[in-house]
């Protein structure tokens, strides 16, 4: 009985699948000749196997390959597009990169240029104002000498600038 249990286990796997070693197989075959219970199990397992072996293999539909080929072509196109987009993005990054050092240098340059321009403009305006002031005070003085004073705006400071 103990032997039958072991043999039945072997019948359900190694023996049925041809994975038992030759000695084991020979031993089981001899046992099956004598044991109706084990022999019946073996027949049932073989019948079960016939069901699987009788299963017809399915023909692979032809459209599957064309679908796969199309999907691969699409994927390659996307990869190429991605590659081009990647190159363009890197170029853009290189040109318009927001790096702190570059931003600082650019800002400083702009500030310096604006400061120089502002200084030049202020200096030229100041010199023009001085000239105008001198001219007007001089004018008033001339008028004073002639005894014809329209406005007497001259001060000691203005005289100092003259």
């Amino acid at each position, binding site marked *: 009985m103990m032997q039958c249990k072991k043999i039945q286990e072997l019948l359900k796997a190694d023996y049925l699948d041809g994975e038992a070693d030759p000695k084991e197989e020979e031993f089981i075959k001899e046992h099956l000749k004598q044991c109706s219970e084990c022999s019946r199990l073996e027949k049932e397992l073989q019948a*079960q196997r016939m069901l*699987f072996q009788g299963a017809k293999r399915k023909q692979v*539909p032809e459209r599957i390959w064309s679908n796969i080929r199309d*999907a691969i072509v699409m994927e390659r196109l996307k990869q190429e597009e991605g590659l081009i987009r990647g190159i363009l993005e890197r170029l853009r990054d290189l040109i318009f990169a927001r790096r702190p050092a570059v931003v600082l240098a650019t800002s400083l340059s702009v500030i310096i240029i604006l400061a120089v321009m502002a200084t030049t403009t202020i200096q030229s305006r100041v010199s023009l104002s001085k000239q105008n002031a001198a001219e007007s005070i001089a004018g008033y003085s001339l008028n004073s000498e002639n005894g014809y004073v329209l406005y007497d705006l001259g001060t000691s400071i203005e005289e100092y600038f003259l």
Partner: protein
Amino acid sequence: MNDIALDVLERASAGNMDAFEQIYKATSSFVYNVAFRITRNSADAEEVTQDVFMKIYRNLKSFQFRSAFKTWVYRITVNTAIIRYRKSKKEEKGRVDYDNIIESLPDSRLATEGVSQSDNEARLNALLDMLSHEHKTCLILREIEGLSYQEIAETLKIPVNTVRSRLKRARQALLVKAGRR
């Protein structure tokens, strides 16, 4: 499934479509049939087959040849089909009628008497549906695709003894369902 020549694999991994088509021709029958048996549905089997070959295409460059190419294909197929089967089962929960399944289980006449192909198919599908996906996968790889214990073990990344015990349990379960044990 036959082994595929190394140069074909190399050319395919370099993007050669003719070489990739050779791989497809050599492996698609296995992929489609295993997918069909696991998912029990031709639309799902088609989807799984396409997914499997897209995965092969995308990962061929990184395939390290640590395992045989066919084992790699087996593994991708089984995993993709099981994922699809679980998804479909979730979507169609409650659809399986177990009374009908038991009624359509095979009997001992099957091996000796003429049974139509469609009956055979229906019974086979009904039988497979009664098993857990681990048992079912082992049985499909062994009985329908004829893989050795070693190949099944490598495909499913399980020890050979686990393959052995799953096959035993699957066969025992089928006998019990059929009322013979």
